[in-house]
């Protein structure tokens, strides 16, 4: 078990390193002159050279990479070109909002998807099942940001129940929470359409297993059999998709923050792109990719926790 965790952790760290190389390479080594993009084509070569020196771009790429990654390891992502403050500080300020949004989006996704998927499986080949399949087919085709716009139209513009966007800050918890409701729903519904389908087919698969009949023969209620016996045995494919969906939720949060003008990392990334603040973008892309990889790492570990048979093999 310990050895297994160790191997997975080493693999995880190696992946992180590879990702940082890719991010750095795309942003630094591809043809293109950041100084030119910052200063515009009217600038003089001298001015651009001065800026490059100021940004440290005149040093060799390998040296710059090592400096960057070494800093990142101790939480120093350099100084933002546009804000003039440490990138780490910018991130720390905005991270709670993005993480809250991603976490609440994931939780709602799980609740909705498990409820719908299990209900559909329990009603296999009956109208409820067909309705869920139809609804999810449609849900998969709806872009999250359009759903967000529709929700704003209904709940903010027409009904005026919820704010159309913006964030009052954590100082006002109630207002903060209500400004996260629509973003969370838009983020979750589309994801849950995918997950509900996976849940349904995994549950149908598990329902055919013999021990379900044993459970029925002991007089357990259908609901108990469904949630206590079928669901745990259907969890492996569900967890796989959840891992992938976490990536979807996190990048979805980037989009949704922009729909609702929420000051999180997603907004920061776009402000930085607009400001040609490469060093900030670079740090943020690395962060997001790291979150995605970490989610998949956790999924790998979760398998082993779910299934005692794997635990035996992993030791």
């Amino acid at each position, binding site marked *: 078990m310990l050895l297994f965790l160790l191997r997975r952790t080493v693999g995880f760290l190696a992946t992180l390193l590879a*990702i940082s190389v890719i991010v750095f390479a795309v942003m630094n080594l591809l043809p*293109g002159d950041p100084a030119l993009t910052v200063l515009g084509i009217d600038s003089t070569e001298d001015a651009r050279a001065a800026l490059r020196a100021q940004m440290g771009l005149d040093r060799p790429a390998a040296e710059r990479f090592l400096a960057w990654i070494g800093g990142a390891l101790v939480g120093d992502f350099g100084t933002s070109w546009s804000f003039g403050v440490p990138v780490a500080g910018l991130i720390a300020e905005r991270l709670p909002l993005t993480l809250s949004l991603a976490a609440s989006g994931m939780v709602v996704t799980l609740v909705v998807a498990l409820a719908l998927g299990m209900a559909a499986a329990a009603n296999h080949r009956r109208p409820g099942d067909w309705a869920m399949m139809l609804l999810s087919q449609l849900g998969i085709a709806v*872009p999250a940001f359009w759903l967000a716009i529709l929700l704003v139209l209904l709940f903010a*513009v027409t009904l005026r129940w919820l704010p159309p966007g913006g964030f009052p800050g954590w100082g006002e918890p109630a207002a903060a929470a209500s400004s996260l409701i629509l973003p969370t729903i838009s983020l979750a519904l589309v994801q849950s359409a995918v997950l509900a389908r996976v849940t349904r087919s995994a549950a149908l698969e598990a329902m055919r297993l013999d021990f379900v009949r044993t459970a029925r023969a002991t007089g357990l209620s259908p609901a108990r059999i469904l949630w206590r016996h079928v669901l745990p045995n259907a969890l492996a494919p569900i967890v796989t998709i959840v891992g992938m969906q976490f990536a979807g939720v996190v*990048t979805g949060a980037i989009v949704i923050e922009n729909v609702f003008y929420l000051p999180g990392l997603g907004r920061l990334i776009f402000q930085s792109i607009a400001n040609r603040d490469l060093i900030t*973008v*670079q740090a943020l892309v690395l962060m997001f990719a790291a979150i995605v990889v970490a989610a998949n790492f956790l999924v790998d570990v979760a398998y082993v926790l779910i299934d005692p048979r794997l635990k035996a093999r992993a030791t």
Partner: protein
Amino acid sequence: MSRPPANLLLGGALVALAALAALVSLVWTPFPHAALDVANKFAPPSAEHWLGTDQLGRDLVSQLMVGAANSLAVALAAVALGGGLGTALGLAASAMGGWVEDLAMRICDLGFAFPALLFAIMLAAAFGPSLANAALAIAFINVPVFARVARGAANQVWVREFVLAGRAAGRSRLALTLDHIVPNVAAAVIVQATIEFAVAILAEAALSYLGLGAQPPSPSWGRMLAEAQTLLWIEPMLAIWPGLAIVVTVLGFGLMGDGLRDLADPRLVRER
């Protein structure tokens, strides 16, 4: 023999609708899509402007049609490029086997760490936002997807008798790949391509919505929605039509992919 599955027919019809709008837009639109007519802004639907006009008096139908062309072009480019590269990579990995295959698949795993949006953000930050960069980013994320599918399908063919016989006869792996492997993985790749078309259209819409795709005045469904969002209080319908266009097209490709998969692998039909 049997009737094509209903989802394939419905999906095909929806896709045909979008493709027709895109093709016609190349030679004709009711109005030039960017023609301003400020006196006639926010016009309601009429015989002239079927779906009305936007805040600058531009004809909505014309914009949606050109948007369809942009959207499908990006999806086509991205899936063709990413799918072609990925399939080639997967076939090569499967043909070589051993550490080459392992390495190729490890690299693919890395690709999964970058959702399209992140990659597009990197490209936009490095080169500035454009429709071409959006297409490139979507193509990039398609490479590992197709590589996996092609390799998985190819690995199943490499152990079949007719291929083993070819190897015993001393034929090269390239010749065998072209003769036997490619025809046998084509179905899996085509099914995946259809599904990835849907994914690409969603991704393009999101990127254009965020300003990382189509740049003004080139219309795109995503960008139309971004503009419409600021006008929700004035003319909500502007935010409806482009969204519907996306849903119809994505649903079409999704249904078509499901239908094709059912055709290619009838064993799966039972369970879905």
